[in-house]
């Protein structure tokens, strides 16, 4: 085996990865580069191909096409036990017939690393479970099992640590606590983390870089704040937080902005924040950026105005209140108003206007799908069926 502990994390590079299962394609032409030492999150709905990507990197699945490089070395053809990669499984996959200590020392013993027991104790101390080293996994709580799974992986100092929704089975409070612990461990050991999750909040709080995956492709990649403030596609705008999306043809462009006609209302978006400048453009704005008004606000070049509309629903959620405003021809607009006691309090049926500053809007690359949108929580089986149908119709045409 030869390879010892990784001194630090290593780069991961995926080049032109394609993974086909019988009947459907899970991943289409995936290119990804994760710099060493970063905390990278793959975010997407179930069935988007994120777990498959992880399994390909771990070597538990074989790629149909493409190459996988870890630290510049091509590992595409190697077996899982030959890769400097460890995984924290969704189900933890702790060996039930071994004690916690034996579980953690398993990887070290396979590589014949000296003082496996001592190192295993050290890893258990890192996750504060050393006092339970003699127990069997079945005698631990869910959170403790999760920490053992983490210790069992990081004790090997892999160049790359893969996390397959490891917090999915925990309750909310424990999840928050584990998110912080994971982040702290990552900073402490300095490894490259690749974290797969469908929880957008988890991805945004923990990762340096988030890649949003949909239907086997990466829709957008970037820092969490960039993804949130400037989504590129309809899918990202809706999957990462909520968005109000409006479509219309571009009716005018200036040096630094474009104007879109939305059912007779002129909406201005900064040119730098729009991914398309011609034809039909879908523009969007986050609900918390909107301001509610009881009268028509003053027209100005610095803001967009929609209205009048009627409040059709008010729901109070503590820090903010969510209003649903129906505007004729435009549709339903979601507004989040912070409960700071100074703004107006609208009730259902009241006539209102909504406005937002021009620089808060964004223009998307693709258009809001006219057909019923792909439900974001579609399972793998449904996707498989859909992919199969698409493939069959493709063959039928040719």
């Amino acid at each position, binding site marked *: 085996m030869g390879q010892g502990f990784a001194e630090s994390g290593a780069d991961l590079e995926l080049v032109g990865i394609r993974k086909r299962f019988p009947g459907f394609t899970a991943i289409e032409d995936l290119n990804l580069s994760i710099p060493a030492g970063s905390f990278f999150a793959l975010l997407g709905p179930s069935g988007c191909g994120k777990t498959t990507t992880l399994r390909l990197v771990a070597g538990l699945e074989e790629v149909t096409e493409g190459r996988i490089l870890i630290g510049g070395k091509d590992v595409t053809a190697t077996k899982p036990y030959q890769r400097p990669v*460890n995984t924290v499984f969704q189900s933890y*996959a702790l060996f*039930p017939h071994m004690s916690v200590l034996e579980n953690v020392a398993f990887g070290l013993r396979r590589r014949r690393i000296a003082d496996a027991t001592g190192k295993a104790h050290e890893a258990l101390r890192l996750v504060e479970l050393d006092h339970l080293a003699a*127990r*069997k996994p079945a005698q631990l709580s869910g959170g403790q099992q999760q920490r053992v799974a983490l210790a069992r992986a990081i004790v090997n100092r892999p160049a790359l640590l893969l996390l397959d929704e490891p917090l999915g089975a925990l309750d909310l409070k424990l999840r928050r606590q584990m998110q912080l612990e994971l982040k702290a461990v990552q900073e402490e050991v300095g490894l490259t983390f690749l974290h797969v999750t469908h929880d957008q909040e988890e991805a945004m709080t923990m990762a340096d870089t988030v890649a949003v995956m949909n239907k086997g492709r990466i829709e957008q990649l970037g820092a969490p704040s960039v993804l949130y403030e400037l989504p590129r596609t309809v899918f990202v705008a809706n999957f990462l937080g909520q968005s109000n999306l409006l479509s219309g043809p571009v009716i005018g462009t200036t040096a630094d902005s474009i104007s879109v006609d939305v059912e007779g209302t002129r909406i201005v978006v900064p040119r730098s924040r729009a991914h398309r400048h011609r034809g039909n453009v879908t523009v969007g704005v986050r609900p918390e950026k909107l301001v509610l008004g009881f009268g028509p606000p003053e027209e100005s070049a610095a803001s967009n105005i929609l209205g009048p509309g009627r409040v059709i629903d008010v729901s109070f959620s503590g820090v903010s209140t969510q209003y649903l405003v129906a505007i004729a021809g435009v549709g339903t607009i979601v507004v989040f108003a912070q409960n700071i006691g100074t703004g107006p309090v609208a009730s259902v049926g009241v006539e209102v206007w909504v406005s937002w500053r021009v620089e808060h809007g964004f223009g998307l690359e693709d258009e809001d799908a006219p057909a019923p949108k792909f439900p974001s929580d579609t399972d793998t089986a449904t996707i498989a069926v859909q992919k199969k149908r698409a493939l069959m119709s493709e063959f039928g045409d040719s």
Partner: protein
Amino acid sequence: MTLQEGAVLAGAVTNPPGRAHRRRSGFRLGKWLLPVYAALALLFLLVPIAYTFVFSFNDSIRSNISWRGFTLDNWLAICAAQEVCESFGNSILIAVAATLIATTLGTMIAIALVRYRFKFRSQVSLLLFLPMATPEVVLGAGLAAEFLAAGVQKGIGTVIIAHTMFCISFVVVTVKARVASLDPALEEAGRDLYGSPAQVFWRITFPLLLPGIVAAALLSFALSFDDFIITNFNSGAATTFPKFIYVAAARGIPAEANVVASAVFIFAIALVVVSQVSAAARQRRLAKGT
């Protein structure tokens, strides 16, 4: 001894506490009818075993049918009746060999059937059930015909082959259930943690399947040791213990056969008791650990 115990047991359950007699008459009937019925059923099951055990101490001459007095000679010199020892040895040899082969092959087949997708997988699964559903007489006769056609000399070797054949089915069924309940992620974790395929099998898969494999092996051993019909068709001149008893029954079974049967019975009971006690001790240890 067992007879007396049974009688005491029956006496105890047929005399319920006096208070129960004051209840409704219909209920009173149920109160004694069920225990008596249960006691009789137990007695019925135990009498042949008790008989075998008691008569292993009989000071018999040629046949072991009438009681002629107590002796320990039969137990002290089991191999005095040479055929008893020889046939018992053959049976043990056949059972051990058939169990080893059937358990090894059966476990491999079970893992393949659950873990891998291949052509005719479900058909293979179905075919493996056939030996269990086919009457033994047909199976035995069929095999005998095949050995004859192939010109194979019948003996202990052919019996081992025959027993392996029907034991495999039971092993596959038993181990398959265990494999199906094994989370594939455990083996994946083993591979991920630098375990080579062989290491993953011996350190993870095998220990987790072991209870199923042991159960399958015990079942195979019992089935093989006990088998008469298939053995009779395929053994030729070789004698196994059941075959010897069957032949001897016509002219009187030697008391040494009773000794062997009783010893096997006692050994089996002791095995069960030991495993139960050790399991209970393990439970207590685990409970103390938490």
